[in-house]
């Protein structure tokens, strides 16, 4: 189990795997390995999360085992400022791609969130109700917003990969 886990750590699903492990064994070798990777501020840059796809509205989605995890990008969280409140949908909400599914509040400004895919909400990050700042501190990991089913997998193809998104962000900043 430990060897297989160590091999999986090298994959693109590094953060997801380690999150699961941390719940089971605090002193496992995998967790120690994960610690050294996090020195590179993993929570801010999706270096090992090559499976992330992005929308032009700065949401990201990572699909694993048919479930998409959705969050906002580092560019978006910086542009918002400190998030003080997350308004998120209920589990079971059905979303079409680009539907408004909630809002994030920062500096007295409420900013709409748009669904990257068509699907149904399966989980909402309840940690954000007590700690909305996770969206700023860990936008690619602990600050995830919702998980959803992926009704139309082809929609992923039209989203930007990391390289395309970085280019897009640079064009906005110019």
């Amino acid at each position, binding site marked *: 189990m430990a060897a297989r886990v160590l091999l999986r750590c090298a994959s693109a699903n590094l953060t997801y795997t380690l999150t699961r492990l941390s719940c089971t064994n605090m002193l496992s070798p995998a967790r120690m390995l994960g610690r050294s990777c996090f020195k590179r501020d993993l929570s801010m840059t999706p270096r090992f999360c090559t499976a992330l796809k992005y929308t032009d509205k700065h949401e990201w989605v990572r699909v694993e085992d048919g479930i998409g995890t959705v969050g906002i990008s580092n560019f978006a969280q910086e542009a918002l400022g400190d998030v003080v409140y997350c308004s998120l949908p209920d589990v079971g909400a059905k979303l079409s791609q680009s539907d408004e599914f909630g809002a994030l509040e920062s500096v007295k400004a*409420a900013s709409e969130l748009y669904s990257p895919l068509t699907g149904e909400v399966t989980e909402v990050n309840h940690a954000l109700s007590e700690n909305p700042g996770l969206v700023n501190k860990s936008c690619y990991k602990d600050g995830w917003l919702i998980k959803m089913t992926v009704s139309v997998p082809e929609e992923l193809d039209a989203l930007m990969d990391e390289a395309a998104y970085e280019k897009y962000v640079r064009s906005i900043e110019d």
Partner: protein
Amino acid sequence: MSLGKTSVNVVNLGRIAYCNGLKIQEHYVRKHFDSSCQTPNTLLLCNHYPVYTIGIRRAHYPVEEEQRLKQLGADFFRTNRGGLITFHGPGQLVCYPILNLGYFKKSLRWYVCELERTVIKMCSKFGIKASTSPDTGVWVGNNKICAIGIHCSRYVTSHGLALNCNTDLSWFDNIVPCGIMGKGVTSLSQELGRDVTIEEATQVLLEAFSDHFNCTLTTAESSCDQAEQSLN
């Protein structure tokens, strides 16, 4: 890439009911998504009949609270803006910039900061030293002179700011303004010890706005009619 300054239309609506203000804002927001509209950026100016409004953090204000405030003679609205509870009423200049941040800078944090700086500059023209604080808004010492609450969708902003000119500040005694305990409210009139009307403040605010947002303000006579039509 625009070589000249961005053009923003100013529409002065005068005294209007809050709910009509919401409908008019929606009308101008929609213009931003209408490809036939050449100059969608708009600055709406108005003042409201007494009303308390809240933002998306609705759990703080249950129905009982709504009833209590309505019994005091004000209206009550739950909106989609950021920020907690505030009051709007006669003597308070309300400004709703309906802007596409793509013409300026695509950052809400920048936008709110520029709104604050606009009001601070405007206060300085009156000889009032205003400032920001960790709580969004514009302050004179521990008293808030201008509240800010924004909504943003696809980079198009709505809601905005509310500057106390000669507002009856006792309306604020019924709430904890913006959810901030231990601080008060003030107005241009209170700070200067003389009556400062909305009309006097408006021109000064517009000059500060065009400076900070580096835009050209235009007043279209027909815009008011369009705004009225949007209510029908």
